[in-house]
C-alpha cells in the first residue's frame, strides 16, 4: 500500500489492465468504504446516520504473502474482508484482484474472477452446512466453478484435499457435527483450497479454537502457503498470532488503517500510539517481564463508529493527543520502506522514547465510556 493512497482519482485505470498488475500486487484495495445505514422510526423508516465500518482503507497484498489485519472488535477488519469478497457490497472504492476491478464486474463475471479468491470464516460451527457431508461441502465449489468433468475426478480431488489438511479420505462421508472445532476449521480450509485459489481471506480462523489446536491450524495454514504460494489476508484480534503468521501487518482502528509495517518492525518499532498501546496490552508468558513492563492503559472504550471523533479518531483515548489531533485527520505517511503511519506526532513520540506523558496514567480510569468529542 505504498503508493496508492495519493491521487487515486486521477490515475484511475479503466478496463482490466490496471495499476494493480503493473506494480505486481495480487490484490489492491483503494479507498474502500463500507457504511451501514442506521434506521430510525417504526413505520416511516428514515436513515438517521451511518456506521462508518470501513472508512477509506487502502492496501495491497502481494502474491504469496500474508497481510495481517489486526484491530479490536468493531474496528472494521472483518467488514473489510467481507467487502473484498462481496459478501458486503462496498459503498465505494476499488478492489483490484489479479488486475480486475471486481467492484465493477457483473455478478457473472465476478463469480469467475473470484474463483481464485476464497474465504475461511471464524466460526467453524456456523460456516459448514450441517446437512451436507464433508465430501459434499468440499466438492461444492468444484461443481459451482465446473472444474472437473466427471464425478470420479471430483471425488478424487476431494480426497486429496482432505489428506492435504490432515484429515482422512474416509471422513468425506461424515457430517460436520462429528468433528471438533479444529477439524472443522481443517474442512473449511480444504473447501477454500478446492478451487486452487491464489488468495484466501482468513477471518479470525483460530480465535474460536483452544490454544493447543490454534497452533495446529496456524502451522497448517503456513504449510499450505509454502506448498501452493497462496496469499492470505489474515484478520484477527490476537496480535501475537497475527505477528507470527504475517509478513506485513496493518493495524485498524475505527474503520481506518493507522499503521502498516513489516511484522518484525511492528514489535521493534511501533509508531502509532494505538499500536503501542495494543502491543503493551498483550500479556506475555513471562512473570518477571510482566511485573516490570511499562503498560499503556488506554482510557475509555472505542467510540461509536456512527459518530466517529473529529480529526484523528483515536485522539479521545490517546495519551499523547494535542490540539491539532482533534481538528486534522492524519494521513498515512511513509516513514521507512514498507512502514506507514497515520499520526501527526509519531516522530515526537518516538524521540520521546515512547513513554506516555504522566497525565495518561491519571486519566486512565476516569474517562467517559463512549468518548465522543461532542
Amino acid at each position, binding site marked *: 500500500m505504498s503508493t496508492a493512497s495519493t491521487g487515486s482519482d486521477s490515475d484511475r485505470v479503466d478496463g482490466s489492465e490496471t495499476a494493480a498488475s503493473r506494480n505486481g500486487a495480487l490484490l489492491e484495495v483503494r479507498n474502500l468504504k463500507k457504511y451501514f445505514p442506521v434506521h430510525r422510526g417504526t413505520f416511516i423508516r428514515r436513515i438517521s446516520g451511518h456506521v462508518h465500518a470501513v472508512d477509506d482503507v487502502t492496501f495491497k497484498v502481494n502474491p504469496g504473502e500474508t497481510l495481517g489485519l489486526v484491530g479490536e472488535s468493531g474496528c472494521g477488519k472483518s467488514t473489510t474482508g467481507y467487502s473484498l469478497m462481496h459478501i458486503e457490497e462496498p459503498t465505494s472504492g476499488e478492489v483490484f484482484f489479479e488486475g480486475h476491478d471486481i467492484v465493477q464486474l457483473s455478478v457473472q463475471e465476478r463469480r469467475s474472477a473470484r474463483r481464485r479468491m476464497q474465504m475461511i470464516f471464524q466460526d467453524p460451527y456456523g460456516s459448514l452446512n450441517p446437512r451436507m457431508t464433508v465430501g459434499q461441502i468440499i466438492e461444492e465449489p468444484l461443481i459451482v466453478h465446473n472444474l472437473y468433468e466427471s464425478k470420479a475426478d471430483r471425488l478424487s480431488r476431494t480426497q486429496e484435499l482432505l489428506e492435504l489438511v490432515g484429515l482422512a479420505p474416509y471422513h468425506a462421508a461424515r457430517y460436520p457435527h462429528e468433528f471438533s472445532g479444529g477439524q472443522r476449521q481443517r474442512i473449511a480450509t480444504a473447501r477454500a483450497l478446492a478451487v486452487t485459489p491464489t488468495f484466501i481471506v482468513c477471518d479470525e480462523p483460530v480465535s474460536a479454537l*483452544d*490454544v493447543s*489446536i490454534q497452533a495446529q491450524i496456524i502451522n497448517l495454514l503456513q504449510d499450505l502457503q509454502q506448498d501452493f504460494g497462496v496469499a492470505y489476508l489474515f484478520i484477527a484480534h*490476537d*496480535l501475537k498470532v497475527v505477528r507470527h*503468521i504475517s509478513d506485513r501487518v496493518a493495524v485498524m482502528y475505527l474503520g481506518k488503517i493507522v499503521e502498516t509495517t513489516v511484522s*518484525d518492525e511492528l514489535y521493534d518499532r511501533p509508531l502509532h500510539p494505538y499500536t503501542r498501546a495494543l502491543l503493551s496490552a498483550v500479556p*506475555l508468558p513471562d512473570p518477571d517481564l510482566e511485573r516490570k513492563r511499562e503498560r499503556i492503559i488506554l482510557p475509555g472504550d472505542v467510540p461509536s463508529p456512527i459518530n466517529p471523533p473529529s480529526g484523528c479518531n483515536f485522539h479521545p483515548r490517546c495519551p499523547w493527543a494535542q490540539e491539532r489531533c482533534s481538528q486534522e485527520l492524519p494521513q498515512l505517511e511513509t516513514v521507512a520502506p514498507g512502514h506507514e503511519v497515520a499520526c501527526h506526532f509519531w516522530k515526537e513520540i518516538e524521540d520521546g522514547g515512547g513513554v506516555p506523558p504522566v497525565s495518561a496514567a491519571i486519566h486512565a480510569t476516569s474517562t467517559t*465510556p463512549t468518548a465522543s468529542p461532542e
Partner: protein
Amino acid sequence: MTQNAQSLLQIRDLAVEFSTDDGIVKAVNGVSYEVPAGHAIGIVGESGSGKSVSQLAVMRLIARPAGRITRGEVIFDGENLLEASESGMRRIRGNRISMIFQDPMNSLNPVYTVGRQIEESLRLHQGSSKDEAHARAIELLDLVGIPSPEDRVKDYPHQLSGGMQQRAMIAMAIACNPELLIADEPSTALDVTIQAQVIELLGELREKLNMSVILITHDLALVAGFCDEVAVMYAGYIVEQGPAREIFYNPQHPYTLGLLGSVPDLKSSRDEKLEAIPGVPPDMLALPPGCPYAERCSFARDECLTVVPELQEVGTAHTIRCIVDVKSGALR
C-alpha cells in the same frame, strides 16, 4: 501450594461428575490445592479441562441433579463448604466469596438497574438501608473506575459497554468486601485494551481490599503477571502446579511445555514453527485408564497408558502428575 496453616481455602481431592444422555462425564477428577490469604492463584486450562466446574463446586453451584460432587473437601476458613447447609452457603456466596463470570452481558440481570443489583447484595448480606446501599453502590462504581457513577448507577446493563459491564460486575462482587474473589475468564470476552484495563483494576482492588483471587483462564500469559501460584488443568486433573516463576521458567509437565510452545510470542520469527500439540483432548465421557495426556504426549511410555500418574514433588511447592523427566526423557 504447600500445607499452610493460614490458608483461606483448601480444596482436597475434589471430584465432580455430570450425568448425560451419553454417559457420565468426569469433569473434575481429584483436584487439591490451597489459596493462602492474600494470594492470587491462576487456574489455566483449555475448554473442558474442568477449571470452571471446579470453582462452581467451591461455590456449590453445580446444577443438580445432573451434576454431583462425588468426593472431596472444600475447607473455607475452617468450614467444609460441601457440608454446609443451603442457608449457610447463601451467607457465604456473594458475601465472603464472590464470583465474576466471563460474559458480563449474560450475568447481569437486564431488567434491573446496575445500582439495584449492587444494592441487593449489600441489603441482603449487610442489612444496609436503602439509602446506605445506594450511596455505597455509587462509591463502588467509582472504585471500579466507572465515570460519573451517580448517573451510571441508574443505568440498565445494556446501556453500558462490555468493559463497563465487567466493571459493574466487579463492583457487585466486591460490594461486601469478600475474602475470596473467583474470577472466571473475566477478560476473555473483552478486547485487548479493555482486557488490560480490567486486569489492572483487579490487581489494584486485590491490594486495596486484601482479597485472595482465583483467576480462571485459558490464557497462560494472563496469569504470568497476575498470579503468585499457577495450576494447569487437563481433562479434569491438575497436571502441574507451583509458583508462577517455576511454571513459566521451569515447566516440568509435557502439557505445560506444549501449551507454552503453542503460543507465539511477540518476538518469534515467522520461520519458527509453533510447537503445536498433536491431536485433541480426550473424550470426557470415556477417559483413558492411564494419563489423560498420554495420547498426545511425545514423552509417553507404555506405563502412561495404564495408570494415572501420582502427584510428584519436583521442586519447592512444585508438583506434577507425570512419571517422565522432560529434560532427560527418562522415568523419574
